[in-house]
């Protein structure tokens, strides 16, 4: 860091901070941060400014470490990234204004400015990197949990298993559904599997094709597949698209499906 900037910050700290604070207020209105109380925002600004000032004087490697832990703290708290990037841009504007006032030599001004630019950009890059890294982690975790939820298999009674499907089905998910279905049939020794598509919003040729394939595979491993939860609009689409589902039984509700399943497995429900 150029000693010039350090001395400028040391000599005119209050003036710089004053100016910067005004800019930060602008950032606030642009970023929908108005819902945050004045006190909290004020504190945050103080913290942010203090941190940046302290960055000036620390060694580069050490500063990097400090920055990471600083960013970590605010990522957890949910501060938007744009607050920091715009805040730092504002800081650069303010410093530039002060520099151009006090320095008349254009050449020196330019070199100081490029130094300043490099420093601030470094901080911004590091912050963006930390933030996006955090987001990528979150997305990865959500993907995993989505995968776990995408094809659950529930053994309801002996020989009968239900797979409730919710949400749209794409090829990758269909593959997972088929694998889970077959593994589950073997594991639970089910004779009848009910696929419940109540929660599937659209059944097009592709989805129907996947379901037909899955049920045929289920037949091959030695169980029967019943498609339940066919809503009126789904029935209409299926017939309009000319999809042939006649090869395996379909029922309108899970309840009716279970009744059929009981019949197939020679079971009966009785009232006590």
């Amino acid at each position, binding site marked *: 860091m150029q000693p010039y900037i350090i001395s400028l910050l040391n000599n005119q700290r209050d003036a710089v901070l004053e100016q910067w604070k005004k800019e930060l207020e602008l950032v606030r209105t642009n970023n929908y941060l108005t819902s945050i109380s004045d006190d909290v925002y004020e504190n945050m600004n103080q913290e942010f400014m203090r941190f940046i000032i302290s960055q000036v004087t620390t060694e580069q490697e050490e500063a990097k470490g400090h920055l990471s832990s600083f960013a970590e703290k605010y990522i957890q708290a949910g501060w938007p990234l744009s607050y920091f990037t715009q805040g730092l841009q504002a800081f650069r504007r303010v410093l530039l204004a002060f520099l151009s006032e006090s320095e008349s030599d254009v050449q020196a001004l330019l070199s100081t400015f490029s130094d300043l630019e490099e420093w601030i950009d470094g901080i911004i890059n590091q912050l963006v990197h930390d933030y996006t890294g955090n987001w990528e982690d979150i997305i990865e975790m959500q993907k995993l949990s989505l995968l776990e939820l995408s094809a659950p298999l529930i053994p309801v009674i002996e020989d009968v298993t239900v797979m409730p499907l919710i949400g749209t089905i794409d090829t990758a998910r269909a593959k997972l559904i088929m694998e889970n279905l077959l593994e589950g*049939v*073997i594991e639970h020794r089910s004779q009848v599997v009910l696929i419940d598509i109540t929660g599937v919003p659209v059944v097009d040729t592709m989805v129907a094709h996947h379901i037909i394939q899955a049920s045929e*595979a289920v037949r*091959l*491993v*030695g169980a029967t597949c019943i498609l339940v939860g066919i809503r009126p609009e789904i029935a209409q689409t299926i017939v309009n698209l000319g999809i042939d589902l006649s090869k395996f039984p379909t029922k309108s509700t899970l309840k009716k499906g279970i009744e059929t399943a009981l019949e197939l497995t020679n079971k009966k429900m009785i009232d006590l």
Partner: protein
Amino acid sequence: MRIPILKLHQYLLISIQVELDDQTALQFQEDLLNKIHNEGSLGVVIDLTSVDMIDSFIAKVLGDVVDMSSLMGAKVVLTGIQPAVAITLIDMGIKLDDVQTALDLEQGLTKLQQELEG
């Protein structure tokens, strides 16, 4: 390599425990039909639990065996088809439409019994 065919009352039991090659499969087809002819069996259970892979030729032979056996008056049930095998078969477009299937040997026998009685 020959696949052993066991007789149990009026049924024949076959457990395939080796990788089926084309020659073995055809030999098996011949052996089974002869056995059905000699014993006058009414039902056949072919257990595929230990088979990890079925190619299109083997699938065709299996389908043929089922058709041939039913011509000779014996019902065939395939049992224990592994998930991976089922997925490969479906992916290849082989549906074994007219073939009965069951989860394991026990359920296969039950199924045969039901069909012969009913």
